[in-house]
């Protein structure tokens, strides 16, 4: 059956089997391999994408459910060819190691920051609790998300951004 879906700003019409999962539409049919499969059971969040701005796990979401909707994947995060504040912060704060969870993690964080541009550590941890990372131990991911929020607030000219401080990379040298 035919599915009309807007992926990263581009409208597409694709003929799919009704049982095709969204993650496979993205990866196999549209060549967007930045979305990964980690568990097949909605547990790990590696396949997280935004559907109409809401994070969903595309390994248990049918492609046909996305009919008439907008999907945003990691490939759609770059802004004007440059890394978005979130992408830049993940690198700057060492919020990734093997990189496999990173796209899903960033999209879950993107949704959080759209809703709450200045989250506390606890709020970040709760918002990302559906996304597993096996490498980082999450501390630097939390810092990255908060740092990206600060950059975005400052870019948006929010008044309190003047005084907000991006959390610094932990030093280690004692």
């Amino acid at each position, binding site marked *: 059956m035919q599915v009309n879906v807007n992926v990263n700003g581009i409208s597409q019409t694709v003929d799919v089997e009704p049982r095709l999962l969204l993650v496979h539409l993205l990866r196999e049919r549209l060549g967007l391999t930045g979305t990964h499969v980690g568990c097949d059971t909605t547990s790990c969040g590696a396949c997280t994408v935004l559907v109409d701005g809401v994070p969903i796990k595309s390994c248990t979401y049918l492609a046909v459910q996305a009919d008439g909707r907008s999907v945003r994947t990691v490939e759609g*995060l770059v802004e004007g060819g440059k890394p978005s504040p979130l992408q830049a912060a993940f690198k700057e704060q060492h919020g990734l190691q093997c990189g496999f969870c990173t796209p899903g993690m960033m999209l879950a964080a993107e949704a959080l920051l759209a809703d709450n541009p200045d989250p506390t550590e606890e709020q970040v941890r*709760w918002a990302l*609790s559906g996304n597993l990372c096996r490498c*980082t131990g999450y501390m630097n991911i939390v810092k990255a998300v908060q740092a990206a929020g600060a950059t975005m607030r400052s870019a948006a000219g929010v008044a309190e951004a003047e005084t907000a401080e991006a959390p610094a990379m932990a030093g*280690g040298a004692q």
Partner: protein
Amino acid sequence: MTETDAGTAIRGLGHSVRRKEDDRFVRGRGTYVDDVKLPGMLHMAILRTPVAHARITRIDVEAAKAHPGVVAVITGRDLDAHGLAWMPTLSADTQAVLALDKVVFQGQEVAAVVADDPYVAVDALELIDVDYDPLPAVVDPRQALEGDAPLIREDKEGQTGNHIFHWEKGDKEATDRAFAEADKVVSLDTFYPRCHPAPLETCGCVADVDPATGKCTIWLTSQAPHAHRTLFALVAGLPEQNIRIISPDLGGGFGNKVPIYPGYVVATVASLLIGKPVKWIEDRTENLISTGFARDYHMRGEMALSADGKITALRSQVIADHGAFNAAAQPSKFPAGLFHIFTGAYDVPAAHCEVDGVYTNKAPGGIAYRCSFRVTEASYLIERLVQNAAVELELDPAELRRRNFIQPEQFPYRSAVGWEYDSGDYPKALDLALEKLGYAELRAEQKEKWTKGELMGIGIASFTEVVGAGPGSEYDIAGLRMFDSAELRVHPTGKAILKIGVQTQGQGHETTFAQIVAGELGIPPEDVSVMHGDTDNTPYGLGTYASRSTPVGGAATAMVARKLRDKATKIAAHLLEAAEEDIEYAEGRFSVRGAPDQAKTIQDIAFAAYSNLPQGMEAGLEGVTYYDPPNLTFPFGSYCVVVDIDKGTGEWKVRKMVAVDDCGVRINPMIVEGQIHGGLTEGFGIAAMQLITFDEEGNCIGQNFTDYLLPTAWETPSFETYQTVTPSPHHPIGAKGVGESATVGSPAAYVNAVLDALAPLGITNIDMPVTSDKVWAAMHEKEFV
């Protein structure tokens, strides 16, 4: 040369250079195996037995073969016709590729379907009809050793029981004597349960055998691509130059991607027979039930002490559950890995350990999950024993450690079982950790809380690691000596390519190895591109596991850069018209002694290497080094955890965790710290929740992430990390390796903290994972409510 150049602009050692690999990862432009898509590529799915122990009486594949879209169905009989039904394991056992007459663990591979679509391949699995005649399953290794236990490995000639090996180390007589004379003996029976590394990317491959040339290219989730190529050549009888293994970006490994799995072999055979590329990517359940598990050690430890708290001897007996095939990934001379590091950070005059390996009807493995070959089990045992000894002797556990530490002036230290520890300062690391924790105040608080009936505990683990295998004379994998390699080429414009034999899975080699070159040659890290994971285009190496990349591959990198620096010095002398011995090198500049203005940069020299050479010198600036380390390295540290226990529910929460790590010289402090965060989290997961267990019929409990729990951002504690630096005296840049320290050291710290809180109740052990229900039950048994 162990000083860092942290103050310079070249950003070699000691700089938190941001990672080069991140630019592609944050854009979703990494290339993991499942991202590889080749023209005409087919897809494979594997049928696995639901029964743990059974005879196969019939397999009917006709309906599956007839299913539209199915290209081939492969059974063990088909492989047997090519002599490929069995393959060797990394522990010199044989493992069924596809089962022939009998299955020996739930999830074992029985047949494979190759189809033009991955969904169709899975559909067709349901059309294969297999009759199983169930046999009693053996899931407890102690029962497996009983005389009437069913024989699991009937395929092995001469195998009459389920015992695999007996191994011992140390002086039994001297140890027993010390025990006979001891003032105090403390014993502990503890089970380090089976867990699974569960990298977020599962295992898989794309096998592409070119029917015209015979060239076999395999994109593989491999932590050791070169060793895997050799093993493929030996197993499949393919000429080695015709095999190319490409291990592209890996979504984590943690030891899970060291073994060769049946799926890789079947996909390669399928590609060979069909003449098209074949992709096989396992799902999460397949990963958890069939690929390399870790630990599963039933340990008994005994510690002999004098009345004043000096450890006089240590002994241990271990029953090691290896599952149905002995596929443990460890150096061939060491069936129990490096377990004999079990005396830990302590000066123990006499020690003896023995380990018996046993077959059970469970998945094969025994891989080193973020661990240097069983050092994790050993470290856990000694640190738990020290905690219990402190309680029994009514000594502070920090003080008991201090009384027994190997002292800084004793290094190099030869242990009772023969290790030569390279360097260390254990009291310093512990003191720093206690200071940062606020130990004295916390002990006072704990006492006060106890009077109010509240439970808090402080856990300590002062671990030592033993990593970086070789030396090649002692350590080999399937006969291949555990050296490693680096090949460095500097191009005319002064930009370089470094090719290495180790394989990153997230550790950041593309950045840190460039920093090593920067430190040695003065070429900034951004000008050094690092290649790995392609056996056609990198020098031979044994791969990345057991924290060996920096100790061995990093050393090879420093040494090859020094080779090039020697040649560059000669070229500088020629360009500057000076004697070679008058050339001084510092930070990318070669200058004439006493005339610092007369200098050439490494970039000048690189150009000259292709344009203006001394008479008779070979052109170019490149070299290769194969480094065989003279010894292992011994990273260490002290981890301290404070927990509060809810006595109503048994739930324990980490209030504070302080980690002091000493991994020698740190190449990139940011990356080192990231490795420690990750390891502390995996250690927390193992201590608190990660468990692969089985029912009495051999059904695996823990087949997906709703049963096999991993720590999320929500329950993972925050960590405070600190360092001491004790360089390795034998490593070219003084580095020791760090990727696994925190997984090795931290489980005991968490568990000791819980048991420290429960010590007044007389509770001396709770096996991991220390879940709230176990804590609650232990408290109730002592009528503490």
